[in-house]
């Protein structure tokens, strides 16, 4: 005891981390926590202004400069701001859950996608299965096999006015007899034309022996320029059974649609790219089948959504004229095509339906996303953004829609980024940075050791680096800062996110100035596209009642961070809804319901396209958006306020040091 009184060493114990550190009396408690390795959140960097570094003093005494960030009640309970407290005696300090750094990174609640989904549709798949038991023919009743089948379907299910594929007839007699006149019939409908009184005329596409109604599956596939995502669907239950994602094999032939179209102009080029994407689709299907243990025989339908270039290449239609003024697609509404004829590994008589396109760069993927999100069902003025390699934007509601497409490049999907990758296991998607020592806190998809950075990770990283001043508003590194993580690499300055020993890839994972530049271009194209489209229809940012974001991000796109870098307009955060891969979602929902199939057709027809390539304002808006968050600070008032505050805090900290 006596020794303690003369010594000025004090032991501080932190809970719930259960760590101790011995410090000099009078040491700042936040510093003690950081030195002890306790992850504590201090967004103002210890200036005392944010109130995020609260701890509860459970034992011992501190001397505190009290600020308004601690309420009377809290103060009574022994809650203090760590940064405003100095250690007097041996202590036990409990780091409040909201002050723990993990919380800031990990516990964000994803908004429920269901808020933004299409509603009012029936579970009534375009592909239907009907089981019939037919009386065998007799001399009194010797109508043809096909008539017998159709008669049975009419009697049992009241099905009529059906068209019949010739292929069905070819093997009908054998199938009926082999199966003892018990068969399952598959029919398919296509979208009814809006306002024509058109009804869904079923088309008889397959007859299988026995009752296969419980084996009733289909595929929904999003064909992106960078990735291909697929889902195996159980049509009886309206459920996803397996999901898979692969890089589009066409990547090796160019990162964007323009280079792909150019490649198609070479001899054999179109055929090559067609085969390559089919190979990717087949890989996706293999994975889905392996994961689900479903037999490929039971897949009865394929719905794909992709941009016009991807769709046309898949179908073997030369995309040449998509690229040449005046930019015309081969067809906006493509009749169903037998998937196996394209090389896709499903059985014969399985049809592929491609989502209709709007214009040469506004395709089925965006129509699919709009339908999935139910934009066409609501009066609310909506801004819909699909963040793919080609960014697509829609402004409108149930009455009208205008759309534009801008080439954002593959950065949001990890393309063109040194350590970029798609949002799969091991991709860094969460990031926060300590404003004092510039050390990062990262989180990966699936919690694995990091392998690379996905799109949402990039956004979070750039926002974080900007907020603490590691990069400037022009996206360039502030190389003078004292951190060993900021260094000069092969491609200029870079920030080390993860040291080699903590990765799966056996090298430091870094973000380079070039990466930041690429992401800035992508975000500038997206924002300038939104701005140009909105202004061309006389809409202000503040008019948007909801902003729906679709894209192949991980599930943790942080709207706040995306606004911080100037990717999305600075609107109240509760207007934003993230729906993930909208194109895949639409393909899935449409696989379940003919109602949405009809909607897709209507949506494709109601969209008016604005060509940004022909628009003089776009380039000007683009250059203005090539800044963090934007050249015109008035466009991002909340971000500017935050940056100004952080800069002030920094100055204050500098003064304290």
């Amino acid at each position: 005891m006596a020794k303690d009184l003369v010594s000025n060493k004090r032991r501080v114990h932190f809970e719930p981390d259960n760590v101790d550190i011995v410090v000099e009396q009078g040491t700042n408690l936040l510093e003690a926590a950081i030195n002890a390795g306790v992850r504590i959140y201090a967004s103002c960097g210890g200036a005392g202004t944010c109130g995020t570094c609260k701890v509860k003093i459970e034992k011992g005494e501190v001397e505190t400069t009290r600020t308004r960030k601690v309420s009377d009640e809290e103060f009574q309970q022994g809650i203090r701001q760590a940064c405003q407290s100095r250690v007097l005696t041996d202590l036990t300090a409990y780091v409040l859950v909201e002050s723990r750094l993990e919380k800031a990174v990990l516990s964000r609640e994803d908004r429920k996608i269901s808020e933004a989904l299409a509603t009012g549709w029936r579970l009534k798949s375009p592909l239907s299965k009907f089981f019939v038991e037919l009386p065998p023919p007799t001399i009194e009743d010797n109508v043809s096999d096909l008539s017998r089948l159709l008669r049975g379907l009419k009697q049992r299910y009241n099905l009529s006015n059906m068209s019949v594929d010739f292929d069905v007839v070819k093997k009908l007699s054998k199938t009926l007899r082999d199966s003892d006149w018990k068969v399952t019939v598959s029919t398919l409908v296509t979208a009814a034309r809006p306002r024509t009184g058109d009804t869904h005329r079923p088309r008889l596409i397959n007859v299988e022996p026995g009752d296969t109604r419980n084996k009733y599956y289909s595929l929904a596939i999003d064909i992106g320029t960078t990735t291909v995502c697929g889902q195996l669907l159980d049509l009886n239950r309206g459920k996803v059974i397996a999901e898979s994602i692969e890089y589009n094999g066409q990547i090796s032939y160019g990162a964007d649609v323009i280079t792909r179209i150019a490649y198609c102009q070479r001899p054999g080029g179109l055929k090559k790219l067609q085969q390559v994407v089919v190979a990717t689709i087949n890989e996706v299907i293999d994975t889905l089948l392996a994961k689900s243990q479903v037999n490929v025989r039971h897949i009865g339908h394929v719905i794909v959504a992709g941009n016009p270039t991807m769709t046309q290449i898949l179908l073997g239609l030369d995309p040449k004229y998509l690229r040449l003024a005046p930019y015309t697609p081969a067809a906006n509404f493509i009749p169903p095509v037998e998937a196996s004829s394209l090389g896709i590994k499903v059985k014969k008589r399985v049809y592929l339906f491609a989502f209709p396109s709007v214009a040469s760069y506004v395709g089925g993927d965006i129509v699919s996303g709009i339908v999935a999100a139910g934009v066409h069902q609501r009066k609310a003025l909506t801004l819909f953004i699909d963040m793919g390699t080609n960014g697509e934007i829609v402004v409108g509601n149930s009455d009208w829609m205008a759309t534009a497409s801008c080439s954002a490049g593959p950065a949001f999907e990890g393309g063109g980024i040194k350590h970029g990758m798609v949002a799969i296991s091991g991709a860094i998607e969460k990031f926060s940075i300590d404003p004092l020592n510039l050390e990062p806190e990262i989180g990966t998809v699936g919690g694995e050791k990091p392998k690379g950075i996905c799109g949402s990770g990039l956004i979070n990283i750039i926002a974080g680096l900007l907020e603490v001043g590691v990069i400037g508003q022009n996206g360039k590194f502030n190389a003078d800062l004292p951190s060993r993580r900021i260094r000069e690499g092969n491609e200029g300055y870079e920030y080390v996110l993860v040291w080699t020993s903590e990765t799966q890839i056996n090298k430091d994972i870094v973000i380079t100035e070039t990466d930041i530049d690429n992401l800035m271009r992508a975000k500038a194209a997206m924002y300038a596209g939104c701005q140009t489209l909105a202004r061309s229809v006389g809409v202000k940012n503040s008019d948007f009642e909801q902003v729906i974001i679709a894209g192949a991000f991980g599930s943790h796109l942080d709207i706040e961070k995306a606004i911080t870098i100037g990717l999305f307009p600075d609107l109240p955060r509760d207007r934003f809804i993230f729906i993930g891969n909208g194109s895949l979602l639409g393909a899935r929902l449409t696989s379940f319901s003919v109602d949405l199939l009809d909607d897709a057709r209507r949506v494709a027809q109601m969209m008016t396209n604005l060509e940004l390539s022909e628009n003089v304002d776009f380039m000007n808006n683009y250059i203005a958006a090539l800044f963090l968050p934007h050249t015109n600070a008035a466009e991002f008032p909340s971000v500017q306020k935050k940056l100004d505050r952080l800069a002030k805090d920094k100055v204050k900290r500098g003064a304290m040091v």
Partner: protein
Amino acid sequence: MTVEIPKTAYSGKIKEITLGKGDKAVTVGGETAYPFYLFEGKMPHLPRIAMEVYDTPPEGWAAAALEPFAGVTGDPVAWAKKCINDYGAEMICLQLLSTDPNGLNRGADEAAAVVKEVADAIDVPLIVWGTANDEKDTEVLRKVAEVCQGKKLVIGPVEEGDHKRIGAAAIGYQHTVAASTPIDINLAKQLNILLGNLGVPDDALLIDPTVSGIGYGIEYCYSVMERIRMAALTQQDEKLQFPIICNIAKEVWKTKEIKMPEAEDPTLGDARKRGILLEAMSAMVLLMAGGDVLVMRHPEAIKLIREMIAELTAS
């Protein structure tokens, strides 16, 4: 019935910035209306002209451009004095041509010593202009800023790539920076924001939008400058409310239309007159677009511009 003449609604004002120090210091900016729109607002400080001096004898100049400076082109101090004493220069712009890494590649210390000599020898404000090579300018202009501490120079071009280091030196030694961007209103604004973030005070910044002469895209420069002024005066864009400097002489006098002797193409007319008029006309276009400081070469072109300014501002 009286006719009401419509007026532009202005909401902003260009910052007033003093260049140099002492009796001969010059203040520019302060406009509350478009250039020479004296019926709508004020132009408290008339546009100023800085005369060019080179730190090494120029090569390949048109005879007309050399003639007024015969005998002094080898001596920057004498050249500067001649401009002031004989041609009434109110400012000097020293072009550090000798530091060009693709040319003489003279070192920073040597170049800075020459700047210091000139600065010590004259009492009008001095603009010091590098070669727009980020690395070399960083080296040279930082040194210049240091050895000329307290002289309140204008230092340029300060570009995105070198703004941090040159900007920091300018702040430290109290000089004014000419923020230079390639003919784009957004880029101009971005650099101003970055310099502001760095700590360059609002009264120590000029915009160099990058200009060219007649026949070489001056319409484009005009339109960018005009937009900068519109944003500054009618859209309260604070980050663009700075005076504009136009380094026009070297752009005009390097063109083949000026250098070509009359004998080679008689339809172009008298070479001397042609050069002077092209410089004067280019300068006038830039004044109409919002230029506050013009860097010019030929005394007769300067005289024409002074007369024009006087006429346009006569009450």
